[in-house]
């Protein structure tokens, strides 16, 4: 009996030592399910090689956005060691409240930038104080997907390019299939700020040739392009080509034929709609443009780009351990390949369209990503101002919704947004 106790005590002692020697760090992955899969796998592999570290991976609690979830955790003093899913505007907000630490202060930063081949990419991620607080994970040049099978049935062999062409396709669609719609965008009538990235930003950047909304705290947007894009939305809605009611899947079941598409959708499609095949049932194009937009000019779009930050609440020891982990993940090109395979998104590297490792995989397994890779040069980053929430919320509240329901003309709506934002920026 005594021996049993001794063994127990010894076991506990050993466990205690191991526990003490182990550094515990937490990593919050994006709420997008496949990104969590990636980080869990990385953490498991890393822990197998480094028994002194325990990494807990869990998705950012969305309450109701991941940004709010992170801020709440910081406010409560329970921020993770690091998290992904940080875009540049949120980064600005975090830097202002001194909640994050710069990556370039860690020894070996330069080596990592070289090893991951992201020297060019990093240029757009520098902050006002000259530091790098975000390591970008991916860049998605948002594209438009078209149901080419339905277009062909309607007598088109390629998707429309300009607003007029789109409307012509729409008219034909309604004539043949009165119950179908051109575009399902239920969020267009919802003021949730980040939804604007995936509708208005896309069309505005395309119409304006990539002109930013703001530089610093100055509105520099192209008014004509913005009004034109708004008018296009309004026309689509008036002609009943746009459906804004909630619907789980419209494009996927052929109820609608056009959608703004990010590559993160592909893993979901594979599981739920394997019949959607690139080139056969759908094709990808840059966003439609106003009729006056030159046909030979490149078409710009929105760049959905997010990355990893380290939080200041972590202890120095945890920071070092997290840095080692992140460096381990990102200096191995195989890991970035795994990223593409699991999440369907392109890693934020300079060589994503030249490195044979990616090219071979993409060509063989995911040819749709070629289009995303080709459009990265024309993808414009989000508004970097720390008051992004209000600025983008006002887009929906003051401008898009009133224009859609006809309370304001596109010109009035756009002016209303600018006026409202000016008071915010003051």
């Amino acid at each position, binding site marked *: 009996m005594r021996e049993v106790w001794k063994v127990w005590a010894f076991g506990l002692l050993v466990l205690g030592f191991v526990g003490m020697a182990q550094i515990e760090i937490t990593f919050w992955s994006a709420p997008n399910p496949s990104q969590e899969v990636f980080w869990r796998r990385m953490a498991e592999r890393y822990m197998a090689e480094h028994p002194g570290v325990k990494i807990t991976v869990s998705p950012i609690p969305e309450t109701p956005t991941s940004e709010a979830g992170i801020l709440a955790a910081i406010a409560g003093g329970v921020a993770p060691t690091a998290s992904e899913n940080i875009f540049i505007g949120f980064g600005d907000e975090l830097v202002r*409240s001194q909640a994050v630490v710069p990556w370039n202060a860690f020894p070996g930063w330069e080596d990592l930038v070289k090893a991951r081949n992201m020297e060019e990419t990093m240029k757009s991620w520098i902050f006002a104080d000259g530091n790098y607080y975000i390591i970008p994970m991916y860049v998605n040049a948002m594209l438009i997907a078209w149901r080419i099978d339905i277009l062909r049935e309607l007598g088109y062999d390629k998707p429309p390019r300009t607003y007029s062409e789109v409307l012509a396709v729409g008219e034909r669609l309604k004539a043949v299939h009165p119950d179908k719609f051109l575009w399902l965008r*239920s969020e267009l*009538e919802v003021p949730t700020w980040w939804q604007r990235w995936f509708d208005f930003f896309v069309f505005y950047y395309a119409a304006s040739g990539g002109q930013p909304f703001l530089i610093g705290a100055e509105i520099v947007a192209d008014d004509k392009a913005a009004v034109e894009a708004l008018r296009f939305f309004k026309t689509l809605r008036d002609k009943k080509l746009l459906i804004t*009611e909630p619907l*789980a899947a*419209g494009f996927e079941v052929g*109820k609608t034929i056009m959608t703004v598409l990010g590559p993160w959708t592909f893993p979901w499609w594979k599981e739920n709609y394997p019949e959607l095949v690139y080139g056969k049932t759908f094709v990808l194009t840059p966003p439609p443009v106003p009729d006056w937009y030159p046909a030979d000019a490149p078409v710009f779009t929105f760049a959905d780009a997010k990355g990893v930050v380290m939080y200041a609440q972590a202890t120095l020891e945890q920071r070092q351990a997290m840095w080692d982990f992140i460096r381990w993940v990102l200096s191995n090109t195989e890991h970035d390949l795994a990223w593409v395979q699991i999440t369907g998104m392109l890693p934020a590297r300079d060589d994503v369209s030249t490195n044979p490792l990616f090219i071979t995989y993409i060509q063989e397994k995911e040819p749709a990503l070629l289009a995303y890779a080709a459009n990265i040069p024309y993808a414009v980053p989000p508004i970097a101002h720390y008051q992004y*929430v209000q600025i983008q919320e006002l887009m929906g509240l003051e401008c898009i*919704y009133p224009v859609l329901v006809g309370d304001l003309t596109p010109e009035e709506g756009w002016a209303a947004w600018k006026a409202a934002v000016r008071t915010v920026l003051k």
Partner: protein
Amino acid sequence: MKLQKELRGWLLASPYLLTAVLFFLIPLGWSLSLVLFDWNLIAPVRIYVGLGNFQEALRSTRVLHAFVNTYKFMAAIVPAVVVVSLGLALIVHHLPRLKWFYAVGFFLPYLASGVAISLVVRGVLSYDSAFNAFLRATFGSAPRWLREPAWATLVISAMIVWKLSGYYALIFLAGLQNIPRELYEAAALDGAGALTQFGKITLPLLYPAFYTVLILAVGLCFGIFTEPYVLTGGGPRFATYTWQLEIYYQAFERFRAGYGATVAVLNALATFVSVLIIRRLVESWGVRKGFR
């Protein structure tokens, strides 16, 4: 012995007194100081703004929406819930058998989490749901449910009426069962029909139950959160925006602790005054009609 007796009372009451100090009095005091500051929950310094938070809140359209919507919800919910729950109670009351079976069945909605029911409502109202497909096939079109301000208000109200009716029916049922049978028998002898009996006996004698249900339902309209939070986010165009959504938004999404606390104070004030007025109105109406 005397001291021991005193001590016993205070000792047994102490669990309440402790939590009341800790989670009622201290936060109450704290909130009174919070409203004077602009503070984002993280920053080490708070900025003293005096009554600035109140000035901002009283001018805010969000607060105005929350304020007005509460009465819109009240106008939709209170009459509906009274009628429905009274109807349920009458059904159960008149059943010769299996009363408890139906009473329990009608009560089941009260157990539903607003989140789970929002899930169902979102599914049922999604554009190509079986329900909407049926509506379009029968009537040619279906409402834009959660995208039209008036419909969205009605949908949220209906969810709340559905949830509470079975519970309030129990209150009416208790009232109905307290009405002596002899009254009806005497009225029948006088030749009063079923409707007259209902109007002259049942309704007046149910006044206490009406009163309870009314006050409960009115108070509830000031605390709507889960359904719009999950289902509409307060939209479309703030049509379903409520006090609690605004407090959550300001304090826990925008992290404006002082301002959030200010809106909470205004909410409490509006609740208090409204409930008081409605109470008085119902009471004086009851007195005038001779119900109490």
